[in-house]
């Protein structure tokens, strides 16, 4: 398999807080990589570096074998990396289609091509099997699952090479979660996009991912194909961290 993305010795601190210590990882073409780890392990920071939102303090990023430095989210997007953020990055006050085209608007200078954007947003959502009756409604009025679906639909609109999903299944009902998982499976079946997915539900990770990476204290400590690991092993790995930590903590029940 060809490597589409590789990061080496990535580090990032925010003032005194070290978010990423030394992260080395890779992503193959058409692969779905599950990124797991406890809260505060640095998962979101890693995603935000890969999508151009944060700049790393040190380390390097190789995109299809060539060193890349992302100047901005738009720059990373133009290089084929798109993201669904944990908070979805939707603007409640804007309509569904304006959100879908946010920062990639169609323009006939100086005005927006609203009709074309409406038509294309509707078409794209229909193609993905996302049911939004009217793309002109404000996002504020949609359900959690619909919002999530729109965030995912937006990120794959420009057919990215790499898709980063930060907890796409958080706060999802079973039915809504299934919709997102189906979307991910459809993308995987197309084979032209590589996906990094952060998740807390390890059963779902095993279900949809090809490989799992565990991020602990700002470094990757575990890297294995999903076929060679199990739900018990993943759970044990993360729970062991609690047991080994100096301050005894109550082990939370999943």
């Amino acid at each position: 398999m060809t490597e589409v993305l590789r990061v080496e010795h990535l580090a990032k601190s925010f003032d005194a807080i070290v978010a990423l210590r030394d992260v080395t990882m890779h992503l193959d073409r058409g692969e779905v990589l599950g990124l797991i780890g406890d809260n505060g392990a640095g998962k979101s920071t890693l995603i935000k570096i890969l999508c151009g939102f944060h700049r790393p303090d040190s380390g390097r990023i190789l995109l299809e074998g060539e060193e890349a430095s992302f100047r901005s989210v738009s720059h990373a997007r133009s290089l084929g990396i798109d993201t669904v953020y944990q908070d979805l990055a939707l603007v409640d006050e804007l309509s569904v289609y304006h959100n879908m085209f946010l920062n990639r608007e169609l323009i006939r200078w100086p005005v927006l091509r609203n009709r074309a954007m409406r038509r294309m947003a509707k078409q794209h959502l229909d193609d993905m099997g996302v049911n939004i009756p009217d793309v002109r409604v404000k996002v504020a009025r949609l359900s959690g699952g619909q919002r999530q679906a729109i965030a995912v639909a937006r990120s794959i609109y420009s057919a990215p090479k790499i898709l980063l999903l930060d907890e796409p299944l958080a706060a999802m009902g079973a039915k809504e979660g299934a919709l997102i998982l189906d979307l991910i499976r459809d993308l995987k079946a197309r084979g032209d996009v590589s996906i990094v997915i952060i998740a807390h539900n390890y059963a779902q990770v095993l279900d949809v991912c090809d490989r799992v990476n565990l991020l602990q204290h700002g470094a990757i400590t575990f890297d294995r194909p999903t076929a060679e690991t199990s739900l018990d092993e993943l759970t044990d790995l993360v729970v062991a961290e609690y047991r080994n930590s100096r301050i005894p903590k109550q082990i939370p029940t999943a």
Partner: protein
Amino acid sequence: MITTSPPVALPRRFVRRGADWFLRIREASIILVTIGLVIYFQASTPVFLTEGNLITISHYVAPVAIIAAGQVLLLVSGEIDLSVGHVYALAPYLMHFAIDYYGVPVLPAIAIAIAVGACIGLVNGLITVVLRVPSFVTTLGMLFLISGITLMTSHAYPTPIPEKARSVASWLGAAPWAEITWALIIVAVFQILLSGTRWGLHTVAVGGNQHGASEAGVRVNRVKIGNFMIVSSLGALTGILESFYVNSIEPLAGGANIMFAAVAAAVIGGTALAGGSGTIVGALFGAIVLGVLKDGFNLIGINADRFDLILGIAILAAMVLNVYLARLRTGGRT
């Protein structure tokens, strides 16, 4: 068929659909208030709808509406400019200095004054966005700073319009309908900017969800700074127009009064102080409501001291109505 359904059913449905449509226009409540006030004052005093009085009203409305056009953009992006009324006072002096002391031709002198206004907006924006001082504080400081510059450079004396500028005076505010014409054009242009362009869309996105907008790659800082520059430039332009109208440059013109009037017009017109939504046409109607109230009270002889009381009640009532209407609009009906 006709006998089985009550005869009022059809009209009532039409009325309801019409009301639904009207309520969904964001400017609905403020337009109703404006019409109501006009009817009331015309009934109270027959001179209300005469040309002379309409010109008077237009001069109350125009400066507020122009500044409000910029202030709405800035409010929608989640910031506020308290210093714009003092840029309004400074700008005509800058024009006067450029023309009379430095021999700059009239139109470039006006352009320089507006450009300095834009620079003040740039400084407001940079302090707010880069140094992360809340815009309320940034522009409060700028308010006093600009006021000090105006008073020092003018020695607190009014001055006449430069002789050389007389040639352009009429279309820059001296002719009866000049100022309101400027106001209507500016309102139209900036409403299109807000609701029809990428800049406007990003302005709403920044005010609605700043973090989300930046994650989507929207250049949050640029949008905010740009809007600071727009308000300040419009403040400078308005100050110049107004100086041509009153035919004199006054050190204490505008100030906090006109700035608060513009914020009030924006809020009465339906702009959210918290950002994320607003309409410039609504702010125009807000300015009309303020102008009509002021003029109407003068005509029917209500004490000027009572004006602030009524204005306060009008702002509170408008806000309550806006909150209520917003709930109606999003109350489950699509």
